[in-house]
């Protein structure tokens, strides 16, 4: 799988790096209600994050034949409706990525990796 996605038009081609898409997805996730942070998707990423801050942290972007597949690994606030929050994250990430990048988003998988309990009732 390539690291960039090409869009061809009559003037030439545009290449968009996965990282760029990842950071848009990440930004839009962090602005969504109920999200308190992103989580490492695996051990390797966890260790890498300790050494160097990475824009893709918690976000995985892949190209399928008919569009983008984005995986998000998140931590949510305890006491919120996870179902509602995840679906609103998915729609706002889809909207923002499609609006800024112009590539269709086929799937968004939201993985809830933890809950943050900030204040017990």
């Amino acid at each position, binding site marked *: 799988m390539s690291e960039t996605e090409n869009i061809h038009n009559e003037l030439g081609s545009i290449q968009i790096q996965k990282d760029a898409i990842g950071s848009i997805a990440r*930004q839009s996730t*962090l*602005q*969504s*209600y*109920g*999200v*308190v*942070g992103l989580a490492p998707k695996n051990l390797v990423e966890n260790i890498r994050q300790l050494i160097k801050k990475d824009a893709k942290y918690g976000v995985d972007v892949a190209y399928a034949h008919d569009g983008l597949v984005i995986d998000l690994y998140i931590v949510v*606030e305890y*006491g*919120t*409706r996870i179902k*509602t*929050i995840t*679906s*609103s994250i998915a*729609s*706002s990430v*889809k*909207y923002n990525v499609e609006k800024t990048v112009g590539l269709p988003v086929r799937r968004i998988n939201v993985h809830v990796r933890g809950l943050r309990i*900030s*204040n017990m*009732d």
Partner: protein
Amino acid sequence: MSAAELTKLSADERHKLVSVPIDGKGLKTLLEAGMLWLKTNQQIVNSLNVFPVPDGDTGTNMVLTMQAAFDEIENSGIDNVGQLSHAIARGALMGARGNSGVILSQIWRGFARALDDHPTMDVEYLSKALNEAKETAYKGVVRPVEGTILTVIKDIATQAEVSAKRTPSFTEVLADIVEAGEASVERTPDLLPILKQAGVVDSGGKGLLCIFEGMWRFINGEPLDKPLTEVMPLSEMDLEDALETIEPGQDYEVVIDFTPKATFNLEDYYEELSKIGTSIQVGEGEGIYRMHIHVPQDNRYQPIDHTMTRGTIKKVMMENLVAQMEEKNHSKNPRLKLTKVQPGETAIVAVSPGPGLSRIFASLGVAAIVQGGQTMNPSIKELLASFENLPTEKIVILPNNKNIIMAAKEAASMTVKNVAVIPTISVPQGLSAMFRLIPDADFEENVASMNDAIHDVETGEITKATRSVEVDDVQVEKGQVIALHNGKLVSSTQTIDEACEALLVAANTSDYERVTLFYGEDIELPHVNQLADKIRSIYPDHEIEVHDGGQPHYQLIIAIE
């Protein structure tokens, strides 16, 4: 209590309920007033939903969340403010719908946390509770976006703190809160560019304000069941109706689509327009307003000039009504007259395969029609759009085709509205269900009765075979006329008349009273009339009716009842 009952309370009773310290009963009444006012303004809040993220309508989501919160406490009888607000928070969280619903539930959660187990609430505690509500709401997001419901709760909490120091009167603090909330909502476009682009204020913030406003209106004895401004979705604007009544001074119809400036005020705009012309309607959708007006010939450019000072014009349509009226009188195809529904009423959506059938459905009281039928099934999106465009929550859909039932069910599951699918597999079944509709009856009653109606009627369909096949022990050659009884092949013949006779026999017509023929676009009326005469001679005691159905493919759709 209903809105009317709430406003019927005397001033003394109202003031007693909200005099400090406020107990559980007082908070419950206030919550209900807030919920009712939000419900009344639901469509206004919905129409502010410019962000094209499909997470439902903000107004509807917030109402459902508040309703769940209220249901939780309605019969609880808790008199302790702290415990009651915990119950509210629990109900709101359980019933939270959409992003705005979750934020609202978090606001209640913070509110409850601050009140802890206090039996009553004074203004100081109100201020503390609102502050904690703000904290909890903000904690829910790493990068809070200003210009949203978050900003509004923040401004409200700040104001509450200031006011609580000034006065111990709950009523005064609430008045300050509402004022601060209004200012905050007005400010949202300055903080969030996307709102400014669309020329609206934030919908979640507006919804939250409605809740506090409702409490304030209740205390002041103002009605809770009449919105300040009526907002009509674009699809609801009935330009056809306006057309039919041309009076002197209504020579031209001008329709302008425009994006208003941030300072746009709908009521002022209405008033300014009323000086120019008549039949004024202003609709709103997706951040665009559509204005409709009738003006005398000399004034025909004034609405354009005027609207230009209020926003950016996207499109202008101008029509000479006098000329159009003459044309319309000659036209054979009158427009459909669909039934208008009000919020809270039951609306019927029917799928219709032809223009004639659409007219029949419309005359029976259908509120929306989706074109579609055999080989041209409407998409789930079209069905969903028809639900969303209706201003009510209670919708019944008649798919009228076996292949559309699934799509209708799917669409029904995707909307937040309450949609009942009546599994009608044919047009006669759909019509039969329509006859059972009682506009004033309860939604559930209507649905049950319409479901029963399906079995009242036998359906016959006459069409031409598209290929040679043997089904249900009947041998069919391509091009032959075939008759289907309740979807089952009963006969294959050379002529429509023969097929029709065979069908009527198969359907045990003698046991019924009435035969209605809906003829399609592939058959001539004289032929149908001859056929009807022939049927009359075979079944002299039956009532035979002929209607223009206009459906493709099927020469005849027959209802036997």
